[in-house]
């Protein structure tokens, strides 16, 4: 039994182990997606604010702070996930963000809003719809695995 697995057993926690390759793959897929998604938004916060405003959910006092914070949170959490630094905390932040994104997309779909997602910046013309929800769901599954499982060896 490896040290990490031993800790999982000794503490009686629910943590499971996953193979190193899967851990690395998930970290790069989920973390990389978030890092990539952050770039355009960091460079153009006003454009991202417009994308958020299209959802008609955020009040005036929250719109700009969100437009400024969320991209950096994506970059920091995604980067940390890739680097294996604070990976479980990063995974939980990613889960929270994905839950928020999915709720916004679902709400927009329910209200029949024909808007672009804005997920990958202001030029992202991907319309809000089921495919987006499924994509976020896949990312969410990856993040949940990363939050709940440990690699067989410690991350670099």
């Amino acid at each position, binding site marked *: 039994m490896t040290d990490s697995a031993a800790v999982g057993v000794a503490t009686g926690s629910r943590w499971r182990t996953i193979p190193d390759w899967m851990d690395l793959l998930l970290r790069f897929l989920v973390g990389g997606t978030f890092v990539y998604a952050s770039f355009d938004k960091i460079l153009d916060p006003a454009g991202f604010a417009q994308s958020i405003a299209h959802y008609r959910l955020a009040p005036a006092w929250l719109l*700009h702070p969100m437009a400024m914070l969320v991209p950096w949170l994506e970059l920091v959490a995604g980067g940390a996930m890739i680097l294996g630094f604070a990976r479980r905390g990063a995974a939980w932040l990613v889960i929270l963000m994905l839950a928020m994104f999915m709720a916004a997309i679902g709400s927009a779909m329910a209200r029949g809003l024909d808007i672009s997602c804005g997920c990958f910046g202001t030029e992202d013309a991907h319309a809000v719809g089921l495919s987006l929800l499924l994509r976020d769901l896949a990312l969410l599954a990856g993040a949940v695995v990363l939050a709940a499982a440990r690699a067989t060896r410690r991350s670099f």
Partner: protein
Amino acid sequence: MAESAPGIRPFARARPLREASLLLALALTAAGLSWAVRTPRLPLRADLAVYELDLGFPLVPAAEAVALFLDNACVPVDTRAGAPARRIPGSFALGQETFDDDLREVFDFLSPADPLLVYGDGNLLVAAAVAGRLRERGFTDIRLLQGSLDGWEQAGGEIQTDDVIQAEEGGAGHD
């Protein structure tokens, strides 16, 4: 290993929360610094009317508008009331209150297919109102200049003043 379990357990449970808090603090710091050094700075409280307008007409940042103008890819429309002393060269004056009279004067020079760049004093509600009237009259390619003439000038856009107008046109007309 088993002896250390009681000490590890609360630590292991709290660790993801502490890690998430640390990352959140990092992101907050980076966002704050980015906001502080970036110009023009995004106001902390948004004017939702600005974003509502975007749903009707695309907003064009000043730098992009200047590039369009230099490529002769837009026809500027000035929505400001009165006779402003400074304007984008070649602007057609279409005020919100005097729209019908103003349009009658310039209608022969405008085609519904012209790509219009509508601007004003920075109040996009007025610019959007005029843009809406233009759309009703059949104009299809309408964009709003984000900001005012100051932003246009800061982006390197040319400004025409009354002196030039009077010299060129003998003081007549706005366009």
